[in-house]
């Protein structure tokens, strides 16, 4: 706690921030979201490439939003309390965002890379080993241009 307070002092943050921080015990990650001009088509990509299941969709007059999660069945995916992946409508896929907003843990990165390509995505960098960690990283782009990253832990 002292270290954190010192960090705040360096940043010049106020007591109000510290009080507010203490109120944030009820915050958790609900989902990571990417955008697409064609939401339904991109949802199919995530279903096919990563074995995800659609767990909810919100159809608004001018936009569609699809929620996906992991599970052997739709029922299992709906019961999965883990953070979802959400696809939200955007007007255009022509964007310059190079940040990979989704990071996946995978157990077979070569198989995942093949699945991504087969489903219409693009591998922008073949899987490579990260330093001496034994972790293999792959970088890809989905069909709507969102960058995604895959991590494979060392196999023991």
């Amino acid at each position, binding site marked *: 706690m002292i270290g954190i307070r010192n960090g705040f002092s360096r940043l010049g943050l106020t007591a109000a921030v510290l009080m507010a921080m203490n109120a944030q015990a009820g915050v958790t990650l609900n989902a*990571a979201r990417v955008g697409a001009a064609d939401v339904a088509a991109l949802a199919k990509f995530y279903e096919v490439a990563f074995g995800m299941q659609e767990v909810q969709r919100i159809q608004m007059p001018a936009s569609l939003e699809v929620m996906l999660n992991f599970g052997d069945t*739709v029922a299992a995916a709906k019961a999965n309390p883990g953070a979802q992946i959400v696809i939200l409508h955007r007007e255009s896929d022509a964007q310059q965002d190079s940040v990979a907003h989704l990071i996946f843990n995978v157990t077979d990165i070569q198989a995942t890379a093949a*699945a991504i390509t087969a489903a219409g995505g693009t591998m922008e960098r073949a899987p490579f080993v990260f330093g001496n960690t034994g972790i293999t990283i792959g970088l890809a782009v989905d069909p709507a241009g969102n960058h995604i990253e895959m991590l494979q832990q060392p196999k023991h």
Partner: protein
Amino acid sequence: MIGIGNLLTKRTAAWTAGLGASLLVALGAQAGVVLNAARVGAVDVAALAKFYEAAFGLQEVNRLELPGRLEIMLNFGDSVAAAKANTAPQIVIMHRDADDLKDSVPHMILNVTDLAATSAAITAAGGKIEGKPIPFGKTGMLIGFASDPVGNRLELIQQPH
């Protein structure tokens, strides 16, 4: 494992999408995929990490310092040790060269139990609240939108009490 019934559903979906047999083979290999993290970008990664710590009570659990770039991983927990032990997906902040992106997609959605308190914490830590919380139909849910100090949009969801 992907069940047979589910696989058939997948086959139908794949055929509908006009995809081939190779894809179906690849599909069967995807049982080992889970979400690791949601990531946002910032020119000043360390400063933005401090915002997420202050606004949401996140803890830094890892950092990668590479030549010319920094990446910080955060997670929820009452202590750094608890956050490091938290197996839920992390929030990762990665270096980018500019923060002036015109990206309207809120890439991160957070569950909150007290939307007003979280909104106050975001403002106090240097973020911005975008409008008033919106009731989502008749569900009792409240939805709020915010931006972090470098312009990444966030969505906040409060379930009915």
